[in-house]
């Protein structure tokens, strides 16, 4: 972790240089974690798409935000150069499963919906 900080601060190297697995493995880990998170979310009976209207929906679904959370958390592990076994594949699968579980069971507890569900915080005056 401190190698990463020194590299960033003193040598001006961008973060990809700090990751010890190859870029193909990084790409594979991202794809695996997205697919696993979507599949586990579908197994947990989350809908594939949010309710209509699509663009103003607070509902969670399998396509959004599950893969976003999964790849975001995987990025934290990658830039800290913590990639466990098999070039990060185990880590990718574990993060995919955990983020799907988080979206299904904990998401509404962590980010509660606003009182007026349809229109966000906007209140007609």
């Amino acid at each position, binding site marked *: 972790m401190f190698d990463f900080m020194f590299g*960033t601060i003193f040598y001006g190297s*961008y*973060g*990809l*240089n700090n*990751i010890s697995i190859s870029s193909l493995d*990084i790409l594979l880990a*991202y794809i695996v974690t997205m697919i696993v998170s979507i599949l586990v979310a579908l197994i947990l009976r989350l809908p594939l798409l949010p309710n209509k209207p699509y*663009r*103003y*929906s*607070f509902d969670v679904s399998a396509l*959004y*935000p599950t893969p*976003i*959370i999964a*790849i*975001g*958390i995987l*990025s*934290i592990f*990658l*830039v800290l150069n913590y990639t466990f076994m098999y070039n990060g594949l185990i880590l990718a699968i574990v993060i995919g499963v955990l983020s799907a579980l988080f979206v299904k069971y904990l998401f509404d507890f962590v*980010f509660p919906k*606003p009182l007026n569900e349809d*229109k*966000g*915080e*906007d*209140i007609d*005056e």
Partner: protein
Amino acid sequence: MNEVIGIIIAAVLCWLNFVIVDTYFGLPEQPGVRGARIVGSDVEKRGGDIAGGFFQGNVLCSPDASAGTLIASIGFMLLGIPGGILAAFLVFIGNRLCADPGYAGTIGSLTATVIIFLTSFIGLKPEMFIVGMVIAILTIQGLDQVRASVVLGKIAKKFNRHARE
């Protein structure tokens, strides 16, 4: 690449990225958060366009594609492509903390990451995108809010996302 030319190109790319993504995901259509309605009606009172006003209010009040582009450039500068993806995750959390149902922030930062990665092959650096994004937001919010809102309203009409349809 020369820094000044790079910053100008980056500013144009950032402007197009966040205006197109924001307009497509319906920022001019309705105020997603409470403050956006106040900004929009105030801009309209001063002779501007209501859809452009909603756009400016949404940009001001909650993270959307403009904040996403800025944070993605900073993340890319520090951490490379994982930094850009991390920015999308952070913008999503910010959206939910603001009680904003929008999708524009996360999608905007992911597209910004792709744009920065692709243009890095022709010599544009992520630092140029940070400066360019600040300039792009200045043209929307800082120089002349009323005229900017008229331009944004015309763009919203082209995308069929105008508030008064």
